[in-house]
């Protein structure tokens, strides 16, 4: 798979901050085996902002807990900075975690919460005071040292949790849906804040989320998980523009998943010709007679009333829905292959819509934007 090759080049030859090799975790509950993680391989580079993205129950938290040391893998190995840490308890791993529920200590003040880790490590008193003070400044909580967690807002609690972990200067920080409990506005503000802090401290972040926008905007790389496995691993752009599987295409953004029978091959691509004048070019190795599935992102498609010329992809259809959405207009087009295709057209000029409901139109796009997908 090309993705794994890219993953290796991304981390280069230097030691990965976190590496999982064929990690499997099976829980046993009520005499039943529950496979939560079914074989995950990944290498996260030093200072990288790495996201684990996937639907509920796909094994994100379990993967993270194995990195932190709260769960031990059933099979496989976990390396932190090159050393095998299977069997090493969480308090001896040089990484910290921000819990989904924050898990702040309710009987301690903000200051005591943040100082907890340093005190356990036996850092001298004056250094604890200095580092806690600096950290509270970074997360903008100076002046609230004496408050109890319950006397803080959700966003402030979140920042205490972050400060409590970061103040220890761990080699990696694990964040399990840290913004899950916040409302949209605060969430967006905290996304920016988190990214800023990560740049400032230069620590590896492993970020669990099921929010694709969050993952796309914040991450250096993303691992899309489904049902205990990594479906695709790559940069946000790779994941978004070239989803490797149908699952990824469906999970990330809006995507058109189409299929057709290859009628001929042309250079390095397969060509599908559903009807007269229609042509879909899908780069790949499929041969004539094969049925290929491929994706095209809605914003890559152009809608026009005349038949396009040139060697691009062209498909005929009827507009079934036009929705004006400000910066772009959303067209739903019923194609001759019976599939409904979603198209986003940028509203560059203030001219009228290119087509109305019921119009016959031609869809066209650059063949580079059709991606054949796996199962």
């Amino acid at each position, binding site marked *: 798979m090309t993705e794994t090759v890219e993953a290796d080049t991304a981390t280069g030859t230097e030691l990965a901050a976190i590496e999982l090799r064929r990690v499997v975790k099976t829980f046993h509950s009520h005499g039943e085996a529950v496979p939560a993680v079914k074989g995950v391989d990944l290498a996260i580079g030093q200072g990288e902002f790495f996201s684990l993205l996937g639907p509920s129950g796909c094994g994100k938290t379990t993967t993270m807990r194995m990195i932190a040391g709260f769960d031990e893998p059933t099979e496989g190995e976990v390396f932190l900075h090159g050393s095998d840490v299977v069997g090493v308890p*969480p308090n001896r791993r040089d990484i910290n*975690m921000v819990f989904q529920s924050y898990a702040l200590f309710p009987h301690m003040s903000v200051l005591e919460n943040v100082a907890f880790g340093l005190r356990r490590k036996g850092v001298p008193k004056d250094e604890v005071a200095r580092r806690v003070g600096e950290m509270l400044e970074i997360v903008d909580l100076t002046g609230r040292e004496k408050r109890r967690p319950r006397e803080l807002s959700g966003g402030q609690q979140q920042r205490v949790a972050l400060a409590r972990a970061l103040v220890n200067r761990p080699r990696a920080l694990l964040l399990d849906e840290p913004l899950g409990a916040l409302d949209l506005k605060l969430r967006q503000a905290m996304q920016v804040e988190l990214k800023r802090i990560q740049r400032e401290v230069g620590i590896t972040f492993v970020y669990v989320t099921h929010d694709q926008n969050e993952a796309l905007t914040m991450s250096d790389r993303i691992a899309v998980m489904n049902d205990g496995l990594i479906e695709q691993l790559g940069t946000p752009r790779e994941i978004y523009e070239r989803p490797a599987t149908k699952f990824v295409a469906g999970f990330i953004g809006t995507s058109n998943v189409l299929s057709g029978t290859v009628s001929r091959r042309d250079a390095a691509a397969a060509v599908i010709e559903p009807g007269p004048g229609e042509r879909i070019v899908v780069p790949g190795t499929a041969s004539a007679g094969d049925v290929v599935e491929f994706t095209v992102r809605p914003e890559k498609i152009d809608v026009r009333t005349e038949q396009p010329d040139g060697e691009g992809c062209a498909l005929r259809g009827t507009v079934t829905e036009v929705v004006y959405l400000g910066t772009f207009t959303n067209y739903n087009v019923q194609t001759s292959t019976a599939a409904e295709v979603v198209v986003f057209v940028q509203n560059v000029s203030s001219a009228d819509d290119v087509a109305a409901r019921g119009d016959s139109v031609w869809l066209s796009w650059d063949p580079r934007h059709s991606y054949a997908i796996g199962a």
Partner: protein
Amino acid sequence: MRRRLVPYLLILPGGLWLAIFFVVPMVVMLSFSLMEGDVVNGFALTWHWQNYTEGISTYADQLVRSLLYGVLATAACILLAYPAAYWIAFRGGVRKTTYLFLMLLPFFVSFVLRTFSWKFLLADDGIVLGPLKSAGLLPQDFHVIATGFAVVAGLTYNYLPFMVLPIYVALERVDPTMVEAAQDLYAGRAQAFLRVVFPLSLPGVFAGVLMTFVPVSADYVNATVLGGTNNTMIGNIIQNLYLVNSDYPEAAALSFTLMAILLVGIFLYARALGTEDVLEVATR
């Protein structure tokens, strides 16, 4: 209008119950404690506060012993109950309630009967001491019954569930991710317990102390059955004065003295522990 009445209607049954069966007897007993006289000639309210001073000086030994036994039995209860409650709350798994039920099972048997069975068990030639003595492991004159130890042991045994339950409830409410967070922040098991779990369970310990120390200090059954004549508690004296001597004023005065001591003690205890804070955590 009706809406505003509802809360009052809700406390009406309980309020009436308390008014009739608690407040009224309290007032009656309080007035008794200030009376003079005897059953034959009747009692008269003469504001005879000497009932108190005389009671305290006459029965100082028993008062002190009651408080001492109370402290000892309560401490023993904490030491026994905490690990048990901890184990059930954190290691009990799906069978938590079963274990809890097993702990409480003996208490389906009458209090007095249980205490008597202890007497039988610990008798000088009973099924425990008898064989040990005949095996020569214990001297022939060794005895447990009629010692302070037997009374404290009986009290501990009888009031244990009142300690286990609140501690269990408090521990059960401690979010396991708190422990994980502590471990994540470089605390070993012992540190995680001392710094996080134990402080968070203090409200339960506090409630347990209230629920055991007060009734233990006022108990008379254990001292009667297991204690013999040298280990009487203030409860025995009050019972005797009331039922045998019919000295109602003195019995009432001693009761109120005990109550006052316990209230002051609990107040000081709460202050010392900073309970407001502790209770706030419990209700978070």
